[in-house]
Structures are given as C-alpha cells and as structure tokens.
C-alpha cells in the first residue's frame, strides 16, 4: 500500500507539473493564432499587404490580454478557428439601450470591423466599444485610454468575462451555502459532508476575524458581510487560477471590482461609525490651531484605508497572474521546448503559491474590513 501510495503521489506531481504546459500553453498559442486570424480579414478588407502570417510574439500584449477583461469568452482554438463563448453586449447609446451578441464584432479588437446596430455604427478597439465616427477622430493615445473617453463611446454595461465569472461564483457560493444551511435542518448532530468542510471556515471568520477585531458585543451584526466578502473574494481568486473555461477570469485582479468591494467596506465602516469616530476625525484631540492640518489628514486617513484595500487585492492577484503568464511566455520568447520543463516547474510552484495567496488575500481583506469596522464602532478612551 505504501509503495502504491508513493507512486500515486509521484504520478500526481508529475501530472500536475506537466499540466501548466498544456493548459497555459494553449491559450498562448490560441492568442497567437487569434491575432493572425484577426489580421487576415483586416488585410483583405483594407486591401493591405505585407501582413505576415507569423506575427512576432509579444509577451506584454499576451499578458495584458489575459489579465484584462473582454466581451467574449475565448475557450480554445480548433483547426485555426476560435471556439468562443459569446457574451451579451449591453450598451446605453445615444438612442437608448442596445443589446446584441459580442459575436457581431467578429473577434475584432483593432477598431476595423464596423457593427451596425439599429443605425448606429460601432467599433471595438482594445475591448472598448466606440462610436465609429468619433473613433476616427481619436488619437492613438486617446484610443488606448478609451475606457475613459466617455464622449466617444456609449456607456457599456455588457456582461463581460469578469461579470460572467462573478455571476457564476455568486451562484456557486449561494447554492453551496444554501446546501450547508439546509443540512442543518436535517442534521442536528455534528456537521457532515460539505457543512463539515465549510463550517470551520465560517467559525474561523467569526472567532479569528470578527470577534477579536469588533468585539463580542457588536460582531454579530457584521458577520454576514464579513463572511460574504471572505468567501466571495476567495472563490473568485481561486476561479482566476483555474486556466480554462468557464473559469480563468481575472476578476479579483481587476481594479474596478476591488474598488467596489473597498467602497462597500468604506460605506459599511462610515455608516456604522459612532460619535467618537467622527469626533476623532472632525474634532481631534489637538490644539484648535492645528485643525486646518489635522482635519484634512484625518479625512485622508479615512479614505486611504479602503484605498489600500483596493490596491492590495488588485496588485496581489494581478501580480500573481503576470508572473505565471510571464513564466509561460518564456517558452515562446526563447522559442524552444527545452525551457518548458523549467518554466512548467516554476509555474507549478507559482500556482501553488497563488492558491495560498488566494486564501491569504481574502483573509487580509476581511481582517482589515473587520479592523476598520472595529475602529469605527469601538467605545475607546481618548488617546
């Protein structure tokens, strides 16, 4: 038994170390093909020549593609054709709400393919949808920062890859915890199965995060929020690490997502803050002459806390993705398979590390949220 167990472990490790080569390498190859794919019709349409079929590998572009958001979910390529899960595009245009499939863009991300939606001409550049006429007037720089060129584009409420992933994670978590909650109705004894796995985590959040930071009297009110952000961030971190459809999104490494979470934490903190908290900000215990300095400092301090939350989660997760993708890119940069085992081993190591980081960042976000809430509701002496 011992021998067979050992060989099983060995096989598992071998398999896992080889897996990144396959799973990560494919999208890389895919995106290479994808780009050539895109280039071909463009070349035809504009009658341009000189576009070589073999495009130079650009690691930055690849990484940006993978950590960014997109309107469609690229699954794989088969026989030179991309297999894509098209997500709905929802736009608030000058003429009102427009909903159509992202398939209409035909994988174009260069602003060449014009889509006609109820008489409005739209193009997509770098995953941002513009009005075709206004797009023409934009400079290269303005196009690259198109996300903030609000006058040149309709408001975009599309179900992007990240939104899709978020919905999926919310549904998974909801049904998971619904099952746990149901299991308590039937089983009054020690928890079994999924409840036995998740209950210690719930108790961990309660006993190690909520109670020490908020206090035994007030923690119960904030438990649902803390549990929700903990599991929501954790599962999305993990989903980001799974390199195939329908996972592989980089939701928690997206600054807008972390912004919303940090903003909600800020709201929860501010709304539950007691008189002493506000007094400390607007009437700090310093001589009145220092108020012009102290009050802005205190207000900035109030805002930097959620800001740090936002940046920390975003940076940690994005950095992890970038490192893994860079390691995979090494194979294509050196253009040799010989790098693959080394690269694969590092990717395996990083993936395992990222699994730790996934849990750790969820923990840190929740812990700091609890800490901020604890500071806001504490009945402390003046110090």
């Amino acid at each position: 038994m011992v021998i067979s167990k050992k060989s099983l472990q060995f096989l598992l490790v071998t398999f896992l170390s080889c897996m990144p080569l396959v799973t990560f390498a494919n999208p890389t190859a895919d995106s290479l093909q994808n780009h050539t794919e895109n280039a071909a019709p463009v070349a035809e349409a504009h009658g341009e020549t000189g576009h070589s079929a073999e495009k130079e590998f650009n690691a930055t572009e690849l990484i940006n593609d993978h950590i960014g958001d997109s309107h469609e979910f690229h699954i794989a390529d088969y026989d030179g054709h991309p297999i894509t899960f098209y997500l709905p595009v929802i736009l608030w245009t000058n003429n009102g709400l427009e909903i159509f499939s992202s398939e209409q863009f035909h994988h174009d991300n260069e602003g060449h393919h014009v889509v006609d939606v109820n008489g409005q001409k739209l193009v997509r550049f770098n995953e941002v949808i513009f009005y075709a006429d206004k797009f023409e007037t934009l400079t290269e720089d303005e196009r690259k920062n198109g996300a903030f060129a609000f006058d040149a584009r309709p408001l975009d409420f599309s179900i992007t890859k990240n939104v899709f992933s978020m919905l999926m994670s919310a549904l998974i978590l909801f049904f998971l915890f619904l099952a746990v909650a149901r299991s308590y109705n039937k089983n009054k004894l020690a928890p079994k199965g999924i409840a036995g796995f998740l209950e210690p985590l719930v108790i961990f959040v309660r006993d190690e995060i909520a109670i020490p930071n908020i206090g035994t009297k007030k923690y119960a009110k904030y438990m649902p929020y803390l549990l929700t952000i903990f599991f929501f961030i954790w599962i999305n971190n993990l989903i980001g690490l799974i390199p195939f459809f329908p996972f592989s999104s980089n939701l928690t490494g997206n600054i807008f997502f972390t912004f919303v979470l940090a903003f909600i934490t800020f709201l929860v903190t501010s709304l539950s803050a007691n008189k002493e908290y506000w007094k400390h900000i607007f009437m700090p215990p310093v001589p009145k002459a220092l108020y012009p300095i102290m009050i802005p400092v205190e207000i900035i301090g109030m805002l930097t806390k959620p800001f740090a939350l936002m940046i920390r989660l975003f940076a940690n997760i994005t950095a992890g993705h970038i490192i893994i993708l860079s390691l995979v890119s090494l194979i294509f940069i050196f253009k040799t398979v010989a790098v693959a085992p080394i690269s694969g081993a590092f990717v395996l190591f990083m993936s395992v590390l990222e699994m730790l980081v996934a849990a750790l960042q969820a923990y840190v976000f929740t812990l700091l949220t609890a800490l901020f809430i604890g500071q806001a509701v504490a009945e402390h002496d003046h110090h």
Partner: protein
Amino acid sequence: MNLTAPESLIFWTSIIFIVFFILLRKFAWKPILGAVKGREDSINDALSSAETARREMQNLTAENERILQEARLERDSLLKEAREMREKMIADSKADAQAEGARMIEQAKTAILAEKNAAMAELKSQVSSLSLSIAEKVLKDELSNKEAQTKLIENMLGDVKLN
C-alpha cells in the same frame, strides 16, 4: 491591461454583490450561524450538566462513604456495648450466685444449729429420763445395799460432771 468600460464592472459588481449579500444573509448566514451557535450552546450545556452530574456523583460517593463510616462506628459501639453488657451480666450473676450460696450456707448452718440444739435438748431429756430411770433402778437396788448405793451414786455423778 485592457480596461474595458469601468462602468460595466462597477455596475454589475455592485448589483451582484448586494443581491448576493442579501440572499446569502437571509438563506445561508443566518441559519448557519444560528445552527452553529445553537450547537455550541447545546455542547456547552451538555458539558456543564456533565460537570454538575460529576460533582453530584462525587458528593453522593462522599455521602455514601460518610454513611458507611457512621454505620461502621455504630456497629463497633454496639459490639462494644454488647460485650460490656455480657461481662456485666456474667459478673452480676456470679455475684448473685455467690450471695445466694452464702445465704443458703448460712441458712443451712442455722438449721443445723437448730437441729443440733433440738437434738441436744432431746438427748438431754432422754439422758435425764434415762438417768432418772437408771437412778430409780439403782436406787431400788442400792437402797438394798447401802454401800454399793453410795458408791454408785458417786460414780454416776462423776460421770455426769464429765458430760
């Protein structure tokens, strides 16, 4: 990084997160936290009642021990008492018997003395009557022989004195 329209993710994150939070709070966190709390309470109750039972048990054992000790002491004292009583009874009966014996001996002595006295009196009367008859006979004889008569009387009186 492709910053797709920020409003999309901000909008959907807010909506999804808030709806998700409300649903989870209602359908998951409340029942789960309630069940966990309930079970912890019941475990604590069970533990404290077990502790109480243990203490009661301890008390009961101590009580039993005490009662046993008391019983043992009582038994000892009873035994001692019985032994004393027996000894006392033996001593008493011995004394009684001795007294009775002494009394009986005394009685016997008195009776013997009385009998003896009676016998002596009887004897004396017998002897006196006998001597009278003898004397009568002797007198009858001796009165015929004066010398012999006197001699006889003297001898007889001499004998009587010895008595």
